């Protein structure tokens, strides 16, 4: 199993934000939380001023902490290596929860 796959399995088990009812909300959460988790882990500056950004921060900060303690190989990665793993995980997660999801309700206007 690749490191990106391992990260996806971890996120699938632990995070509710990837499972919102609508495809657009799922995409917005995945794209809001994962890049922020990367910045938190690597110590890069980030801003969280709007209510949505603060909510993504709450999810990303916890995800970063959980992954650091549960995925020990994370610490050995370079910044570029981590960027690759997280971006790979982001793509895989979008595939599972949005693009290839069998959930027939994701794009219903009235959900």
């Amino acid at each position: 199993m690749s490191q990106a796959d391992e990260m996806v399995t971890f996120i699938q088990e632990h995070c509710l934000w990837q499972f919102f009812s609508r495809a657009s909300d799922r995409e917005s959460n995945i794209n809001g939380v994962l890049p922020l988790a990367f910045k938190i882990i690597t110590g890069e500056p980030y801003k969280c001023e709007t209510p949505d950004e603060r909510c993504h921060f709450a999810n990303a900060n916890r995800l970063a902490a959980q992954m650091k303690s549960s995925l020990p190989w994370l610490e050995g990665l370079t910044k570029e290596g981590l960027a690759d793993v997280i971006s790979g995980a982001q793509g895989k997660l979008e595939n599972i929860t949005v693009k290839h999801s069998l959930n027939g309700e994701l794009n219903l206007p009235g959900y």
Partner: protein
Amino acid sequence: MPMKLLECDTLIPEREKHVYIKEAGEDTTQFLPLSDVATIPGSLSERGCAFCGAKLVIGGVLKDTIQMIHGPVGCAYDTWHTKRYPSDNDNFQLKYVWSTNVKEKNVVFGAEKLLKKSILEAFDEMPNIKRMFIYTTCATALIGDDPKAVARTVMEERPGVDIFVVECPGFAGVSQSKGHHVLNMAWIHEKVGQVEPVITSPYTMNFIGDYNIQGDTEMLAQYWKKLGIQVLSHFTGNATYDECRSMHRAQLDVVNCARSAGYIANELHKTYGIPRLDIDSWGFSYMSLGLRKIGDFFGLQDKVEELIAEEEAKWKPQLDWYKERLKGKKMAIWTGGPRLWHWTKAVEDDLGMEVVAMSSKFGHQEDFEKVIARGREGAIYIDDGNELEFFEVLAMVHPDVIFTGPRVGELVKKLHIPYINGHAYHNGPYMGYEGFVNMARDIYNAINSPLWALAGQDIQKGEQQ
């Protein structure tokens, strides 16, 4: 493994699309049970109706509101007292039941006059109560009554009262889930934004999808108080009608039951820009995670850590005592939908148990995505399970305890398998730290009760056995 056709379903092979057994390496892009679709004829479903989803689950919880059920008396009686959600005002909502008691003559000649008479009579009998929900039911929807028009007339005649109409007869959807949806959407469009709350804290939130089952809301309210967070609206545990009209002023929506109330959180985000944070409120690990997320949102991390340390110091030794004794015990969860994914990892991580089978009455595919991601390999995942399937699954996985409702609970009790009320609890509350110890205690007591062995004895044989 692909979807599973159980032996009992040979004559209704469509059921294969609703039963899944998870195997290593599989994900929900390969297999996902069909759900939130009409029950297959011939399948002895355990589902409730759409009206029940609106009234029993959400509306009926409000503590200051007359629940006028416009239909035959059975619709009112059967959605009263079957779920234990107390309140801090002497349980007004549990003490009374209201019905227009529609009869055959009303079906023939119309029941709007009867509805108006019943509304006025209820307000006159309870002069301190100024809020009302009216629910249509199958009979009054079919005859074309217009309860909204009646409500408007009463509100014009009595300016102090406010009435909300839920037009969701039992036949409106395939299960309770439709009632959740209808009530959520109507409430946000018709009532939210009408009352301005008094803000007393720099930190405000709504707590959505918690119905104060045996005091859950009051359990969590202790935490919000310690953190200095003002909850503008609980949707709808221990809440008033007007608190739920002021949801638009919160800074954050914290969602527990995403199935019954995710809709209103989504709409609050769309209309008022309030972000939605989903958490699990059962289990030590989940509760701590949820509290930390809320702390991160408001910048209250230190206070949250203090609270967690205090609660864990108080309750963790008791949890550990139960964990030592429950480790490896097998559990089945046959409830509505969300508790499958809220509980499966909570009891596995915090109590060392194994969840071997889960069945949902009204979950959607979203719920199955969550529970399959969280649940163990080899576990059986069923949508809208029927009684014969339950018997077959019991023979396949032999659970030590089953969390389910009273209907299925009676079934498994006859097999001398311990059951715990997964909807209204046995001795709750179950949320939060203390609550999860209560849940562990109920599991321990259920599994170790001597009654199961005694129930299997034939007393006619006396001491000869």
